[in-house]
């Protein structure tokens, strides 16, 4: 949900896996590896889909990308176990949907005091 503009979003299929990795501050390479390990299919297509999704998420101000050296989280992110070829599921492209039908309700509250550069959930005045 983006309480700044009243949009909400749905991430399904491999987009759910990608979002999970993003929450763990994984690097782009790390997410690519994870997709290649989890799914069977054309890795070139997976990489392209991933880049497109990242761009879409960034365009909606849901994430911000940083240089990997600044994040330094690659070591912390859990490494998925490599599945043997027959254990992998068939690749399903990431599905990212945006909904605007609740905008009028979500923007009603005088609660949205988030600082512009931080966004939710860093409410103004909170540490």
């Amino acid at each position, binding site marked *: *949900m983006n*309480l700044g503009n009243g949009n909400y979003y749905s991430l399904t299929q491999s987009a759910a896996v990608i979002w999970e990795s993003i929450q763990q501050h994984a690097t782009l390479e790390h997410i690519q590896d994870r997709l290649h390990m989890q799914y069977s299919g054309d890795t070139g297509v997976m990489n392209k889909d991933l880049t497109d999704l990242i761009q879409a998420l960034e365009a909606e101000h849901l994430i911000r990308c940083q240089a990997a050296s600044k994040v330094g989280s690659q070591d912390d992110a859990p490494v998925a176990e490599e599945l043997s070829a027959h254990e992998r599921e068939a690749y399903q492209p990431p599905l990212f949907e945006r909904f605007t039908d609740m905008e009028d*309700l*979500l*923007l*009603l*509250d*005088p*609660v949205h005091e988030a600082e512009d550069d931080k966004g939710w959930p860093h409410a103004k005045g909170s540490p």
Partner: protein
Amino acid sequence: MLDQNHAALELLVIDNASTDGTAEIVRGFSSIRYFYLEEKGLANALNHGVERSQDAFLGFLDADDLWIQNKLATQLERFAANPSLDMVFGHIEQFLSPELEGPVKQRLRIRRKELPGYVKSSMLIRKESFWRVGLFDKSMEFADFIDWYMRAQEENLQELMLPDVLTLRRIHETNMGYTERNQRIDYARVHKRSLDRRRRLSKT
């Protein structure tokens, strides 16, 4: 509410363990049916009123907001003109509660004074339409109406948003939405549940 220029009004007051002398005040009005609830919770109180009301239309007014004098009359006119309508909303005008001063007043920002009132206080709904959606979800502490409205949309209830200001919304320090950061968790839950319902529907 008593100022409404629509005469026939069934009025229920649900006192959710308030400490501001509500019972004393209500006692002075013989037309009001008064209920006292020990069990706390906004959705619970709303449901209590819905279940006990007998009129064909339902309107809600939270303790801190105000209705414009012709709210009900204006909305009932639209229902009479269009029998297929399920619910009618109006715009709301937000105002800073007059007792506010100093830093609190500085902190509360009203981004837009007047805006479409997708809130309970502005809605008038046919009771039979309300029951198609069902009661407010008691597990929602803050997003009771957002949850209810999403379910109403899923039921394809026909709505009308009037451009007239029909409700005055008081902004003060204790607006539930303002004080409770947890409401955001409720909001997210509500949207997730709605998405899940729609995904299930699209699969069948």
